[in-house]
């Protein structure tokens, strides 16, 4: 039996509704991002020249950690209440509902992070030339992080305390994203062409959109078989 609404759009809508119902929980990565970023000037130095030098890297690392925080929950509740099993025995391609869930995840984590990042940029004295590239690179980059993180979340969904294993699994895969993400911001600050690193990020995102849902579908089937 299948509900025809349960495709890409159906899962996108449902996960957004679920996120809205527990918005306090969903907002915590964003609060984490803002709070930890305010610690940096306190811990290093309020000197704007030194902060400006570190800002691109720090903002990117914070965004990565904030995304990682929320990734674990991506499939956890569906696994616990049995919806995941219902999804697995529904007569449709698994990749599309999965992609819908990931888009919903990005809309409630990556997108808000991108939108508040100029604020953090100002706080860390990021030069104005870096603001737009930072937002662009975060928008593309956090989408990559959501997709890659979802593969790890699918693999570790059946584990009680999968959080640490998840980090160990996905952080190596996050490396290219953070390299090109912060490179885009740094290039813009140095007055170089920042569209190059951004294009690489866009290419990574395209590859991830095409490949990650397949890997996730495989991982979910594997996990349910145990």
């Amino acid at each position: 039996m299948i509900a025809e609404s349960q495709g890409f759009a159906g899962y996108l809508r449902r996960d957004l509704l679920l996120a809205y119902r527990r918005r306090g929980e969903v907002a915590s990565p964003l609060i984490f991002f803002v709070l930890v970023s305010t610690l940096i000037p306190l811990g290093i130095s309020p000197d704007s020249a030194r902060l400006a030098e570190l800002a691109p890297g720090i903002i990117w690392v914070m965004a990565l950690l904030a995304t990682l925080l929320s990734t674990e929950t991506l499939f956890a509740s569906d696994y616990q209440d049995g919806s995941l099993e219902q999804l697995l025995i529904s007569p449709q391609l698994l990749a599309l509902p999965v992609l819908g869930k990931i888009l919903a995840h990005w809309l409630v984590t990556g997108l808000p992070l991108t939108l508040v990042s100029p604020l953090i940029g100002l706080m860390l004295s990021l030069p104005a030339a870096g603001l737009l590239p930072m937002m662009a690179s975060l928008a593309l980059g956090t989408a990559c992080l959501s997709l890659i993180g979802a593969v790890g979340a699918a693999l570790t969904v059946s584990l009680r305390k999968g959080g640490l294993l998840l980090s160990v699994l996905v952080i190596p895969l996050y490396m290219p994203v953070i390299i090109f993400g912060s490179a885009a911001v740094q290039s813009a600050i140095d007055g170089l062409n920042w569209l190059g690193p951004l294009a690489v990020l866009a290419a990574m995102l395209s590859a991830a959109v095409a490949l990650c849902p397949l890997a996730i579908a495989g991982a979910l089937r594997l996990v349910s078989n145990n």
Partner: protein
Amino acid sequence: MQLEGANGAGKTTLMRLMTSALQPTSGKVLYLGRPVQDCRYEYLDNILYIGHQSGVKMTLSAEENLRWMSPASTSAAEIALALDAVGLRGYTDVPCYSLSAGQHRRVALARLSTSKAAIWYLDEPFTSIDKQGVLNLQHQLEAHLQRGGAVVLSTHQNLPIDGLRTYVVEPHSDIGLPL
């Protein structure tokens, strides 16, 4: 068909195998004489599985849950009727976390009214359901059988339903289930 067997005998595992949630390590599941892998869409489109974890989302209301789990063509009136039938009138717009365990199960069982599937797989459907609920479910199962549907359920209760055959699941037994 009723599956019986001691705790841990493999009733749930058997049912998950039949619904293709689990892949068998040996042997195969046939649907109308064909392996289910070959007619996956057709088969899965025609089954309804309610397991131990019923797929009910705690933050959604009973109505939203049922709407999500029902075919897209189901009208709002049909949803309301199905929730009435399982005795959830008045609870339809309350978030499910404030309902009891029995009521969660009733939300899941309301799917039986909206589903158009011919084969029902029900794993311990009577868990935490009260006496009246058990009777209602029995009537629903009988009606489904009379319509020509098939029911596979696991339960420890004795059900007075005509035509219900019992299979005892034992570990390491080779059973061929005629479906």
